[in-house]
């Protein structure tokens, strides 16, 4: 698996990525499990995925984002399994020449994930 993992996520790997000299903008999104899920206090969320399809769709969306927004670099990781409150469920990082493309590219990937990629919050506990 390239974009999905059952290990805890940290943005450090992404932070070590060098930026191209033609990139002037870096945008990073972190999605973190909140204490309240639909108003109810929880300890964790369990994520599941249809893994081969999710990986294939992510690969395709990332390629599309690179071309459409001129992204020089993309980092995408989604954690599966049990994710405790306060820990990272998803990281999306992009580098682009200018700020508008960087924000648009990062948001495109996040909205595509939320709309189409077969990953579910299977259980809260």
């Amino acid at each position, binding site marked *: 698996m390239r974009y999905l993992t059952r290990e805890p996520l940290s943005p450090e790997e992404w932070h070590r990525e060098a930026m191209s000299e033609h990139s002037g903008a870096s945008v990073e999104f972190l999605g973190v499990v909140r204490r309240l899920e639909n108003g109810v206090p929880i300890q964790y969320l369990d994520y599941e995925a*249809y893994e081969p*399809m999710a990986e294939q769709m992510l690969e395709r969306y990332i390629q599309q984002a690179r071309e459409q927004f001129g992204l020089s670099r993309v980092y995408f990781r989604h954690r599966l399994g049990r994710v405790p409150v306060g820990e990272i469920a998803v990281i999306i990082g992009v580098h682009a020449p200018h700020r508008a493309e960087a924000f648009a590219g990062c948001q495109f990937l996040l909205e595509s994930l*939320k709309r189409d990629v*077969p990953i579910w*919050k299977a259980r809260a506990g």
Partner: protein
Amino acid sequence: MTVTVLAFAHLKTVLGEDTLRLSLPDGVTVRDLINRLQETYPGLVQWIKSTRVAVNCEYVELDTVMRDGDEVALIPPVSGG
């Protein structure tokens, strides 16, 4: 022909399993399969409007004709991120 049906999230509970193996006549469409599943699993009916179907990891329309060996996934609304 034989197809594999995969269920995810709450649809696993509805079907009672996460994987079904079904023998179907040739020429059957995704719509035919869904109708047959709703007959066998009446609990599926209330969820089917919000369910998308993927064949071999691609979202498909209901009139897609299935082929031997296809992997059919029932995809409830996704909630990643």
